[in-house]
């Protein structure tokens, strides 16, 4: 019983003395830095910086003396974060050729230095030690000058990033073949290049106590709902965690219902999709470090939308969309309906089809439910193996997946061919949903459905559907009902939901996202052809 007493709430209670001490030291450090300012003595400043970056081998200091101008200065930067060739070429050179002339007082000398440094970036004056440290960590180069209690900071990012490549997840047939990269700044540029308006606002904040990840909130002023923008910022700034590495983590923090299997934020890796979302009045959240950005608010219809829909003619786009809705239905209810109908409602199947299925199942030793559960799990195993394997193992995986499991299990009489077909169709159907992260999560609903269908038949599935629908209609994404425009019904919004109307008929932006500015183009305009 003693164990129980100490068990549950131990973590919340004050720590050991050692832990408490560490926390105090940390706090003191922070406070010390906040109030600490650099002094006029370069030596002191350098030693305090060295103290802070003790044990960081990539922290570089270059001290330069220029006796003819009575100037002693030091350039500090973190190697790698700042391009050292730029430091050599620009900063050192411009400071080498400096000539103060008649200027003697400290202020004018500082101004001359600042002007000279403008050639290599935007110089900023900093004096607080905490600011200097954060500037250094943010790919800036700091120039400390002897005899000045202010330092000059120049931002010069020199980090190596991946070059822009083709989208890997959201491939399109026609349309731009460009995806975001890990660099948040490049992502913003990619958006800006497609949206040449000053109304595109990109607000910037840092998240993560340790990682200090840069996060950009982008929206179009005048289109995006102000309340949504404010809410996005509020939720983002409320994130109080140590590290943010990828968009997925942010997603988990800002979703309305984080337990739901239906994601209420949309991921994309395509700049064109992002721009389209912006113009509809949605807000983008760009996280530095992942090639995926978040789009909010989102509704269920967006998960059936691919960028390709807008680059194809409306007939094909509409057909594919209807097919995607069907595919979602199949991927959720395929195996459960099969099991429920064959084991509980055999009278629903036409006689001849029933005989075919029954003959196929004649030698199978498992009940249909167990059989379906097994095969679905096997399918998930193959899928996960395919996603995580090194690329060189592809062939072996194909052989194991297709041959051993597909063919041999049927030949051995462990699984009926009909079940293989059901599982295969279900699996294929789940790939039809263009937002791949979504489709994988949502198609997992088929497991609880399978249990319900296997235990209670279609009655059970109906119960499951009811629960799912009740959940869906109660779900909201940043205040927007998740099922809109289907319910609450919005006929104008339906023009671009289940069926995509021809482009010239889409004269209004979806008004369930925002209501500020709905006109894409005037419906009757002499400039329009129609």
């Amino acid at each position: 019983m003693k164990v129980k007493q100490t068990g549950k709430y131990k973590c919340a209670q004050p720590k050991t003395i050692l832990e408490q001490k560490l926390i105090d030291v940390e706090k003191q450090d922070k406070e010390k830095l906040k109030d600490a300012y650099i002094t006029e003595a370069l030596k002191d400043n350098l030693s305090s910086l060295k103290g802070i970056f003790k044990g960081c081998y990539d922290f570089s200091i270059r001290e330069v003396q220029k006796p003819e101008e009575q100037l002693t200065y030091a350039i500090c930067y973190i190697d790698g974060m700042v391009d050292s060739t730029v430091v050599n070429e620009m900063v050192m050179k411009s400071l080498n050729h400096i000539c103060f002339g008649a200027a003697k007082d400290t202020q004018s000398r500082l101004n001359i230095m600042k002007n000279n440094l403008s050639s290599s970036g935007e110089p900023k004056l900093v004096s607080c030690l905490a600011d200097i440290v954060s500037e250094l960590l943010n790919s800036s180069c700091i120039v400390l000058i002897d005899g000045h209690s202010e330092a000059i900071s120049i931002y010069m990012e020199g980090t190596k990033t991946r070059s822009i490549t083709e989208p890997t997840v959201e491939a399109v047939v026609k349309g731009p073949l460009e995806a975001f990269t890990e660099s948040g700044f490049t992502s913003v540029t990619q958006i800006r290049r497609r949206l040449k308006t000053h109304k595109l606002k990109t607000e910037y904040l840092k998240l993560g106590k340790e990682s200090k990840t840069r996060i950009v909130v982008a929206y179009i002023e005048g289109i995006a709902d102000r309340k949504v923008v404010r809410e996005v910022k509020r939720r983002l700034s409320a994130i109080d965690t140590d590290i943010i590495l990828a968009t997925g983590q942010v997603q988990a923090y800002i979703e309305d219902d984080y337990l739901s299997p239906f994601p209420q934020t949309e991921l994309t890796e395509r700049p064109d999709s992002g721009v389209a979302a912006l113009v509809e009045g949605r807000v983008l959240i760009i996280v530095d470090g992942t090639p995926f950005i978040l789009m909010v608010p989102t509704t269920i219809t967006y998960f059936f939308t691919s960028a390709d829909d807008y680059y194809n003619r409306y007939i094909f786009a509409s057909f594919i969309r209807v097919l995607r809705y069907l595919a979602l239905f199949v991927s959720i209810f395929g195996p459960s309906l099969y099991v429920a109908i064959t084991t509980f409602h055999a009278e629903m199947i036409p006689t001849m089809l029933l005989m075919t299925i029954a003959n196929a199942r004649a030698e199978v030793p498992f009940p249909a439910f167990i059989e379906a559960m097994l095969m679905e799990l096997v399918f998930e195993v193959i899928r996960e193996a395919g996603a995580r394997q090194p690329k060189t193992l592809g062939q072996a995986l194909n052989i194991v997946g297709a041959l051993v499991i597909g063919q041999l299990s049927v030949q051995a009489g462990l699984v009926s061919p009909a079940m293989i077909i059901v599982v295969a169709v279900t699996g294929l159907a789940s790939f039809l949903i263009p937002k791949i992260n979504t489709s994988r999560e949502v198609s997992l609903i088929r497991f609880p459905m399978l249990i319900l269908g296997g235990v209670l038949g279609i009655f059970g599935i109906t119960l499951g559907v009811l629960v799912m629908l009740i959940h869906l209609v109660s779900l909201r994404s940043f205040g927007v009902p998740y099922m809109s425009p289907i319910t609450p019904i919005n006929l104008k919004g339906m023009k671009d939901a289940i069926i995509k109307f021809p482009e010239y008929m889409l004269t209004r932006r979806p008004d369930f996202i925002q209501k500020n500015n709905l006109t894409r183009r005037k419906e009757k305009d002499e400039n329009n052809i129609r």
Partner: protein
Amino acid sequence: MKTIFDNKSLLLIALVVFFSLPLTGCWGQGELNEMGMVMVTGIDRTEGGQYKLTVMSALPTSTQGQQGSASNMWIGVARGSSVPDAMRNLNKISPKELTWIHNNYVIIGEAAAREGVGDIMEYFIRDWQNRMDKFVLVAEGEASSIMATPADTDKSLFRELEGITRNSEKWAKVYISDFMEFMIHYANKTCDVTAAKIGTYKADRTTLSSSRSEGNVTTGESKILYIYGTAVFKDGKLVGWLDGEETRGLQWFINKINEANVEHSEPEKGIRAVMEVIVAKCNITPFVREGKLVFRADVNTRGRLIELIGGINIMDIKETERLEKSLAKVIENEMRRVFEKVQKEYKADIFLFGDKLYRTKPSIWREVEEDWDEVFTEVEVEYNVKVVLRGTGELINNIKRDREE
């Protein structure tokens, strides 16, 4: 979300719900490979007053490996004091759990039908497993012997039955009624019931398909299954049969003609004209004339010529009209023949006259309701058949006739 439930009790509730699901024992659940799907049920009456039930059931058999297409039909026979009792008794011999959810045919043996069909069908109507869109057939002879007929081309007799049922819409010499129609007519005191007749005959094997089983090669003869003609019931008891032409005659009355041929021939002139019916509509109007109940049957038929032999000039409107009149006469004779036979011989109102009277002239019906059986044998029928020829097919006149001229 501070509710009365904390996380622990919520988890507990979820677990209780989850674990109670399997406790339902999967009620109503059954694996396909453990079921024997009864496709055809035959019912006979034995001399001891017992019911003899013959079922033809499909047993799931693996199609893998074995190339030969052996029939996977299982035929079982059981006796019992009632139909459900006989069904239970089948468990004595059945290798699988028999279900009637796909029971497509109920074949009633002649002896059983003569004793009364209602007591047999009661079970099939009441039981949830049987659907209203399945078919009732009456066997000439014993149902069990018909079900023992070896299948001809298909793997099972059931498939043959299905094919014949589909084809029955293509000609008018048989009409297969489903449970629903059969029982509505049976329950209705204004009319009597009919059902299609099923039987077998022996025929020379050489004219038939080669897939007939080996055992019949030496005899050169084999049993062929047919569905043709009609069984006539009077008060739910079989009283007699109608042949094909008579069945067609009956169907003119009850508006069941879907596709049919009407043939007019004058052998002495070498004339033969065959019309295919496109639309046939019969309207029956009861009225009283000189104290006698008369039913006027207005038949309006549209059709097209599908055969024309001899010297009729179809381009001549007068000759066409004459042809139409003689075709109408053919239909009228057909109707008259069957009506007189049924009225005199079987005294069964299978033409739904009572029903018509009840619907259109309820006051008269109420007067004759008590002794409709006698009144029916006295009623007169006025025939008013109209035929309109629409289209002559790919030809106009007979090819030979044009050459001779």
